[in-house]
């Protein structure tokens, strides 16, 4: 490892402090890189409201929980208007950290809480290092939380422009959006490579103007939790007699599309007689709009009226360790997102547990599901389409078994690390033996050489 190139991962948050897809996959990649024998370092941002006790007077960078190679970047002055860090000490000590670590590759995951200005600094401090950015969302393009959903009418936005963005934010003039774009592009100009987790993301950034030759598609790293159940699996029912149990995993916010599921279930109750269940796992309802919160609470309050045809259970938040249990209770995973879902880790989770996904035909999720082969697509935002898909799921004989058998699972993290190394332009060291215990429910692992984890975009 001493001879290995040094790779510094700079991530928005640490997944053990704040849950989220970007930090989860960044951390998995870091762990995988270490496992592969790379000299990897993980620097995760942290904000005072998340863990005030971790902020030490005068410190900008600290270790994290006594772990070697893991650090926190204590970001107390991130400014959301221009995505800058406005604490000069944060800038100077970040630069000093880079000088101290001397990484050969700096791989940023996101710029929220870190700062676009840190990109510029990284380039200046490390003129010869390879700088890489994973595009976890569209915040570079879209000020509306990077969702590219029009704020005035909630329609999907195809393209940002100063006037269109001004329509979403009437208090901000078109010129200021041009300035924003210039600033973001400037900061992003320092990168040698961009990694898009799906081709959909690559295409969208390509049309935004990122150079084709710098854009690569590499899937997100994700460990296979289907073999990591630390609980004693007594009497676990892994499959129902009729595959009529649906599960939703994710944040309870508008864009995740749970409202469409509620509408579809209400329609279902009026149309069909085949019983189904819905398990909801998720949290962060407080980040949803008031309208959605009201809809969520009133739907659950009235859910009893749909029984016995439809039984709805809200299980609350979950961690990765809970996944085996939660997944054992369901047959299908619904991903009903009504925004341009970039990647959706929940889709990977569905595949790793061989739970065929039922997915909006949009964005990265639509791209990742092969309709009628390893999952089912329905028209985004269309409750009728989803209702009909529910019915098909519970009535078409052999459908579930066929789709589950075709589930691609998740690529081994080492393969994903290797694909990243190709982008970094560094050799993949000889990996240590990887322990991947097999489980009866999982398909046999293919030899690494034959797997197609990812490849740079052509």
């Amino acid at each position, binding site marked *: 490892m001493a001879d290995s190139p040094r790779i510094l991962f700079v991530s928005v948050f640490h997944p053990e402090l704040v849950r989220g897809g970007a930090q989860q996959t960044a951390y998995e990649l870091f762990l995988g890189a270490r496992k592969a024998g790379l000299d990897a370092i993980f620097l995760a941002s942290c904000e005072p409201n998340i863990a005030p006790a971790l902020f030490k007077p005068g410190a900008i960078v600290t270790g994290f929980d006594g772990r070697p190679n893991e650090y926190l970047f204590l970001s107390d002055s991130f400014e959301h208007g221009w995505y800058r860090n406005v604490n*000069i000490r944060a800038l100077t000590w970040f630069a000093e950290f880079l000088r101290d670590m001397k990484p050969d590759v700096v791989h940023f995951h996101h710029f929220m809480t870190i700062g676009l*200005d840190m990109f*510029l600094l990284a380039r200046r401090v490390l003129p010869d290092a390879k700088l890489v950015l994973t595009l976890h969302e569209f915040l570079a393009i879209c000020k509306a939380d990077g969702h590219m959903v029009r704020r005035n009418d909630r329609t999907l936005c195809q393209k940002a422009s*100063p006037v269109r963005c001004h329509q979403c934010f009437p208090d901000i003039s078109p*010129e200021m959006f041009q*300035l924003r774009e210039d*600033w973001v592009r400037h900061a992003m100009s320092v990168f040698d490579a961009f990694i898009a987790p799906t081709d959909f993301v690559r295409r969208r950034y390509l049309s935004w103007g990122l150079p084709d030759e710098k854009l690569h598609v590499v899937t997100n790293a994700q460990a296979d939790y289907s073999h990591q159940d630390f609980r004693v699996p007594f009497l676990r029912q892994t499959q129902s007699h009729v595959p009529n149990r649906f599960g939703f995993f994710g944040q309870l916010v508008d864009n995740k599309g749970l409202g469409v599921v509620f509408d579809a279930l209400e329609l279902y109750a009026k149309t069909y007689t085949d019983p189904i269940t819905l398990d909801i796992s998720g949290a962060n309802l407080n980040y949803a709009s008031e309208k959605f919160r009201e809809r969520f609470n009133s739907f659950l309050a009235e859910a009893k009226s749909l029984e016995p045809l439809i039984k709805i259970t809200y299980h609350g938040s979950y961690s990765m360790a809970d996944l085996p249990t939660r997944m054992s209770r369901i047959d299908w995973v619904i991903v009903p997102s009504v925004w341009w879902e970039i990647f959706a880790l929940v889709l990977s989770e569905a595949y790793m547990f061989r739970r065929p996904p039922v997915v909006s035909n949009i964005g990265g999720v639509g791209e990742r599901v092969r309709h009628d082969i390893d999952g089912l697509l329905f028209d985004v935002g269309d409750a009728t389409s989803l209702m009909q898909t529910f019915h098909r799921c519970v009535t078409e004989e052999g459908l579930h078994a066929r789709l589950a058998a075709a589930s691609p699972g998740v690529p081994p993290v080492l393969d994903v690390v290797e694909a990243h190394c190709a982008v970094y332009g560094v050799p993949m060291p000889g990996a240590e033996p990887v322990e991947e215990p097999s489980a009866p429910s999982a398909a046999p692992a293919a030899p690494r050489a034959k797997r197609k984890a990812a490849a740079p975009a052509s």
Partner: protein
Amino acid sequence: MLDGTPEEGDPVEVKLDAEPFVAMFTEPALRSSTHLNFYRDGQIALHVKYIPMRGAFVLNDFQQGHWGEQMFVDCLLTPGAAGLSMTLALHEDGPQIRFMGVPPVSLAERFDLSGALMARVPPNIRPNGPEAAPGERARTPDIQVVRMTTLEGSGIQLGLDATVTSGNAFFLEGWIDDRRSPLVGISMVDFATGLRASLPVGRVRRPDVDSHLQVARPGQFGFWVAGLGGAQQLEAAALSLVFEDGSGVPLELGAKFRQGEREFFEFLLATFGRRSVIGNITAQSFADLEAGYGNLLSKLYRQIAAERRVMSHGRFGRRAQPPAISLVCVLYGYPDFLYMLIAQFARFGSLDGLEFIFVNNSPELEEVLLRDAELASFVFRAEIQVLTLNQNSGFSHANNVGVAAARSKKIAIINPDVFPRDPAAVGHLRLLCDRPLGPDIYGGKLYYADGSVMHEGMFFKQDRRLSLLCNAPIWTVEHFRKGFADTSSLEPREVPAITGALMVLERSLYEKLNGFNVDFVFGHYEDADLCLRVQQAGGRVILDPGLAYWHYEGMGSTKRPEHIGSNMYNRWFFSRLWGHRITEHENG
């Protein structure tokens, strides 16, 4: 915190399609932001209250448990006034709201006030009309007559709404029914010296007075007068209104509202700028300025200017070598543009040889600008100076301060919302400044964000209508091909004037001309004035399309009510200064 809970107050039925609703927000109601709600089916269809800190009424509704988007109607509470009247009426194109002294505002696109409404009227808001009892609908609009003097037998009514003073000046505002004989001025006699001064009165439209007097046609029954002399001098003077027929009536002053000198000046400009008149506002303003108010504003501005000073001077990233170009940028209102201007230059390469000098006309932004200068200096390796002035000293003075601090012999005056279009634009600026610029001044070709032309030189155009109305040549400054597609020649060419948004010249020339003329108030027209002085000194004004820059016009600074008045003053001042010379030049 607002909520949708109905407040206590007398219920009043309101049906706007039958008749308008009029109410008087008393002074205590205004100061305490007491609200007036109009309900329909238990929901607040319209919520009205005054925000003293903002100087505006806020309008909103509360439907389905949510407040809607706030709407503001600027409305200054005149010091000394007993309140502000509000009229809510239904017109052909929907409901309108009107507050005393400001034009009516259409509510059609925001509020549904059709059908039967119920207003809850708190005790300190009066449904108008002297006979209106609690719970009874007001029928006639009311105006507050603070002081009324009736000339015996003449039937003249008048009211004085405001007496505002500063340490060295005063302002009176009121109304008068002078249909018998027009008011022509105010006479002021100093008790101590016996000196008599005649002050011109400005006239304004007062819809509330029109309504009160029940006149068939709108008139200018409002008047205002301003003059030098503070509260003490006002106390020691006798004021009389003088009419065209030679008669007069003593004017009794009520409670005086005291302001600081700067605050008073801004108040006077704001009042001047947004007063309502019958006829052409510019022509009326020019007449008022000619009548003596131009000189008054000039004197007051100079008195304020005497207090100007640099509060702090920060230097960041200073290089040993003097820079090749000093870019001088005046900031007002928005701090973001310091960092963003430098970032925009840094997009196109190293900032070596460039010095950015920011002169801050907003003292309250001092700390954030120093912070951002330090950040920008570190991130972009930029050489930066930040000078913070103790007041908004205007565009001219701030630039003069900036140029005085410049380390280079070449000066680029640049607005905070002007950015290089591409690397060539920065390169061209460097190239231009590599050689002597002589007695000439260079301007850039500026573009809107959409790529259309914002500026490629300016010319002077006589405003025929205004010239006729003012009986003097009134010139306006026009931009060539503003908003047009970018199709004109790339060759540098002489033009009558260029915008101050981007000017490049020798520092020595700037100093020789004493920089921008500080007699222009705040901003506007000083750039054309400088160009004319360059030409007068034998230089040329050159538009160089190689200096291709974006100009996000109007984004770089805040607009305040006093700027409307200062713009009128500057236009008048410019016409006075240059009108005849431009006319002579145009006539050959």
